[in-house]
């Protein structure tokens, strides 16, 4: 295959990745800019990070966002895993087409539609807009992403493992928790991470469904960006990028180790 990896292929990959990463790198670099002008380099400084930590509004918003993200990602992971099980294991039941439609549609649905419709639901049932409504909205959106991630793992799952367990007398629920769950755990973990970051990032749906006292970080960043680009926002963005990057790297390393372990276990099981 090496021979066919031509210069053209390498060039397009390098250019593509430069396009993907250059804006983010520039954003990070200019967060350390001494000058208030975001695009003129005035020397190295960390003062924007210091001023960031004294910005009470931003700190409050960060706290709200973190809580919403943790709660919604956790609930969404449970619901999304159930949805993935439904999609892969129960291939015939009434309303299956509707169900798979409801799982896949939110993935591409423009956020303004989802946001508006959820808000109108909350108003219709008389739920005050705030922390709870943002969390419910994020659960609904992110559970579909979790479902897709977990489902792709379940499709390739070797069901003879489950059958063997049940053959040895384990009831289905116990089989699920002792056999299926550990095997699909990496997918569930990446599903949780995806749900967490999606919730952390969401501006549009949060703006529709949030109320006073539940301003999230993206809403705060957005309102400041509209007033003008400042190095302080660059600093806030850099911290967010760092948190997500570290999380993704840790998760993927853990995933890789687990994957290696799993393959070793499966080989051992087949040999023995």
């Amino acid at each position, binding site marked *: 295959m090496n021979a066919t990896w031509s210069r053209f292929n390498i060039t397009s990959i390098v250019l593509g990745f430069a396009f993907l990463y250059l804006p983010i790198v*520039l*954003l990070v670099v200019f967060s350390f800019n001494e000058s208030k002008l975001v695009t003129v380099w005035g020397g190295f400084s960390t003062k924007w990070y210091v001023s960031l930590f004294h910005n009470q509004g931003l700190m409050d918003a960060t706290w709200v966002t973190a809580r919403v993200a943790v709660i919604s990602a956790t609930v969404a992971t449970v619901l999304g895993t159930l949805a993935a099980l*439904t999609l892969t*294991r129960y291939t015939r039941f009434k309303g299956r087409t509707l169900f798979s439609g409801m799982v896949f549609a939110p993935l591409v649905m423009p*956020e303004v539609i989802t946001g508006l419709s959820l808000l109108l639901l909350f108003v219709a049932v008389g739920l005050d807009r705030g922390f709870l409504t943002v969390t419910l909205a994020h659960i609904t959106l992110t559970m579909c992403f979790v479902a897709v991630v977990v489902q792709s793992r379940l499709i390739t799952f070797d069901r003879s493992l489950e059958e063997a367990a049940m053959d040895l007398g384990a009831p289905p629920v116990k089989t699920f928790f002792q056999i299926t769950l550990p095997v699909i755990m990496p997918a569930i973990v990446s599903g949780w991470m995806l749900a967490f970051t999606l919730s952390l990032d969401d501006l549009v749906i949060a703006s529709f469904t949030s109320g006073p006292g539940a301003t999230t970080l*993206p809403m705060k960043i957005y309102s400041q960006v509209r007033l003008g680009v400042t190095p302080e926002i660059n600093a806030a963005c850099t911290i967010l990028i760092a948190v997500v990057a570290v999380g993704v790297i840790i998760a993927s390393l853990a995933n890789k180790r687990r994957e290696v372990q799993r393959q070793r276990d499966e080989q051992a099981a087949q040999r023995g």
Partner: protein
Amino acid sequence: MSNAAVTAAASSRATAAGKSALARLGEAFVGRLVILIPYLWLVFFFLIPFVIVFKISLSQTAIAIPPYTPVLGFGDGLAGFFAQLNELSIDNYTWLTQDALYVNAYVTSVIVAAISTVLTLLVGYPIAYGMARAPAMLRPTLLMLVILPFWTSFLIRVYAWIGILKPEGLLNQLLLATGVISQPLIILNTYTAIFIGIVYSYLPFMVLPLYSSLEKMDYSLIEAAKDLGCPPTSAFWKITFPLSLPGVIAGCLLVFIPAVGEFVIPDLLGGSQTLMIGKTLWNEFFANRDWPVSSAVAVILLLLLIVPIMLFQRAQARAQEQDR
């Protein structure tokens, strides 16, 4: 399946048959719950909201909060329900079709999304192709590098482009310093900026499905074509491209559908001069506080997208069947 697995499967079925009726009832109950919980959640938080949007799009604007007159409650029994039915109006829809602003916003959004989708495909295809032909050892890393930006905030990635595209921004500084241009280019707050923003933000959505269909491709086909005297370009159009078509379709739908209703990119990069429906809906709701009209805008947007969404779902279902 191996022989042992077949035997295991057969005997597990035998065990299941021998199980007590009560145990089977319990299992059936758990199975029901697995389906019912996510099902009901999605019906309540995804399906019913659309019904409400549709209902409110047919009601009149009122000063009170929530700013619409309640329509279609069952409070007064069936007679009341039918009385209310007469009060429904399609005024909001006639208003939308008569106002050139809305019609323009829909048409522009579809055109902008279509052009951006083609641009994303043109940028994404060489990347995906290069990745698929990379040494197998490198591929997981390359894949990770494509996915990584997707994990960083959408808002941040769009925001990063403001500093680059502004008249006194980094791109103009570079071009002026190198003498390519003598006047700063006006890119920010134009449709060009929106195209750049969409291509940039949605690129991973295009590259991933393209990569997964290109990776599965058997390259000996190309070699066979070459041996038989087929020039590389025509081999690409006759073999590679048709085989990657499922990836092309999935990628294009993943970009096109959300791009039509995009809000953040046209708002931050397009400025006030550009017109897109997601921004119109947002302003109608947050600035004008006209809930019925914004609901009507949403309903028509949904109708526009229903065919592409169904195509997307069909493509997903088919991909799933193939993986099985």
